[in-house]
């Protein structure tokens, strides 16, 4: 089995599905000849031609709008938005059409689209290149939002996303695009959507997180283990709709909950997780919920970035708080 990085796993999943489903097309800025600015679509245009791997003009709303039109007429577009900070011009098409076409036409026309975009910061990028605004998209009915945290999950979840008959926003954590290689069997097997993945079992406190923050959380869990604190780390994976059962079961076991995400705190996805537990798991809680998040301010440029993105120290501190 080949060992691949997360971004290579993304490319593999594309290639598999394009080989097996002629209705899959790839489009976006610089995805063709250049293979994407992160190389996520590298080699695809050579393999599948410029008709199926399309370098588009520079316009994100156009990319999303084309996807709606293509999907409604039988294609399965997989589009790249170059950075999440540039997804805003596409929101109109996503929320007003992509997520609504099936409902609007009572199932007559549908929108099996995947929009992929890099997610989060921590790699000293220029302005607007470190955004993680998944919560805005989770609020849109009719959309799935997915974020893998390892090469294997990137492969399996992306395949699932492309095969899903409805639109999926697929977030790729830039910080771990090349963080670690993992053996991934290129066998076309998808992983289930709509469920959490428990990355580490524990008994004292539950941590719910996703994307690149899983790495920090697992590190924190290791550090806490040394202090005899047993932490359960749950990767949300599908950020919307949330698999509430897994979270509630975990909290029922541990009695404590820390939520970790890169995005700003206010009305972040962490709020929804906290709300679900305050509604359905209140009596299990033995301590106030803690959120470790980006602050409610603009993601700073590189020199202050490490003070913005949650880190092991902050996570450890939050777990301590739930236990004190």
């Amino acid at each position, binding site marked *: 089995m080949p060992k691949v990085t997360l971004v290579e796993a993304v490319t593999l999943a594309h290639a598999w599905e394009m080989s097996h489903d002629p209705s899959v097309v790839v489009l976006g800025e610089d995805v063709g000849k250049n293979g994407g600015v992160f190389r996520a679509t590298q080699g695809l245009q050579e393999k599948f031609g410029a008709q199926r791997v399309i370098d588009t003009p520079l316009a994100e709303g156009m990319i999303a709008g084309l996807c709606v039109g293509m999907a409604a007429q039988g294609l399965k577009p997989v589009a790249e938005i170059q950075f999440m900070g540039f997804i805003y011009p596409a929101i109109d098409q996503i929320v007003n059409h992509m997520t609504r076409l*099936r409902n609007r036409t009572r199932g007559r026309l549908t929108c099996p689209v995947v929009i992929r975009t890099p997610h989060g910061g921590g790699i000293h990028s220029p302005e607007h290149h470190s955004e993680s605004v998944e919560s805005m998209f989770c609020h849109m009915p009719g959309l799935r939002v997915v974020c893998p945290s390892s090469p294997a999950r990137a492969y399996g979840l992306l395949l699932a996303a492309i095969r899903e008959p409805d639109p999926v926003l697929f977030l790729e954590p830039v910080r771990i695009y090349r963080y670690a290689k993992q053996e991934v069997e290129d066998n076309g097997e998808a992983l289930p959507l709509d469920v959490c993945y428990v990355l580490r079992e524990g008994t004292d406190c539950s941590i719910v997180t996703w994307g690149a923050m899983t790495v920090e959380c697992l590190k924190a869990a290791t550090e806490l283990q040394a202090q005899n604190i047993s932490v359960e780390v749950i990767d949300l994976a599908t950020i919307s709709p949330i698999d509430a059962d897994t979270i509630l079961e975990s909290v029922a076991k541990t009695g404590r909950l820390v939520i970790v995400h890169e995005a700003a705190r206010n009305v972040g996805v962490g709020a929804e997780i906290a709300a679900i537990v305050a509604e359905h798991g209140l009596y299990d809680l033995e301590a106030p919920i803690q959120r470790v998040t980006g602050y409610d301010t603009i993601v700073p440029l590189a020199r202050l970035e490490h003070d913005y993105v949650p880190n092991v120290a902050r996570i450890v501190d939050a777990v301590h708080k739930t236990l004190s």
Partner: protein
Amino acid sequence: MSTAAEFNIQYCQYLDPEGKLLPGVNAGTLPNFARDPQELLKMYRMITLVRTFDTKAVNLQRTGKLGTYPSALGHEAAHVGAAAALRPEDVIAPVYREIGTQIWRGVRMVEILRYWGGDETGNDFVNTRHDFPWCVPIATQTLHAAGAAFAFKIRNEPRCALAYIGDGGTSEGAFYEAMNVAGVQKLPVVFYIVNNRWAISVPLEQQTAAQTLAQKGIAAGMHSVQVDGNDIIAVRAVMEEALQRARTGEGPTVVEALTYRLSDHTTADDASRYRNADEVQQHWHLEPMKRFRNYLVNMKAWDEAQEQKLKDECALQVEEAVKDYFATPTAPVTAMFDNLFANMPKRVAEQRDEAVHFSMMHKAESHA
């Protein structure tokens, strides 16, 4: 200074406002379809049906039996002429006013009433399964047409997409983005600007400084033409040519049809607040139905008796549709959940149950 590029916009018209052929036009220079009276009468019948339906729909709204409704009064030639140029396998991306196109293509009047009556099944067109639904967010539909055309191109199908857009709509960036990608990819798509001179209360002069709206196509390197949108012969001729270009790989076209919104913007609007009655009156002299009828009568293809019979037939057809509409049961509350996802997530299913519970509670209370 030297000249780097030159452009011009051509304008097409056959019939004058009285329904006479313009000087220079004769049987020989008329487009093919216009030499066949049956083809012309088919279009005239549709115009009449559309106007009958439109009047009825406005009345239904006024009497509280329909929601807000956007009248198509004055747009009949622009809408029917374009439809007549299409093939069934083509795909349209309409806005909200094109009932002339929709009924021609097979959308049932009851479906139109359902939509404006607040029922999503109104977009589940029984006959035109692949056409896009009504589109309220202005200009967004132009990208859907481009995307559809892209699909046809990729699959190498001889089909076209036709996007409608209003004069106001041409100010949205999405329209321009759609034209630009259509140009660069030579997509089989036609952008059809129905310029009725008003976007709610905003007149054309405040919408753009462009002398014509057709010239917006120049920005995308696109073939661009203007047509008298109240002259159904010109509309159909120009649209046939544009669609033919698209179908044969010659690339996209933007067509601007000049017409006028004779009604309020919608039934929720009162145009007398912002628009001169004189202006409206002047445009009544240019309206498409009388002009076309005069032409048909002049060529002896139509007479008063036929006219009366047609009117009665149309009234009957519309009454049938209204009856169907009134008989349409309200969808169950579950309908708002069942079409959200193919694979319903647990959370949605739970909320579906919640909604059913409260809906039943509500009904029980109403009956108590």
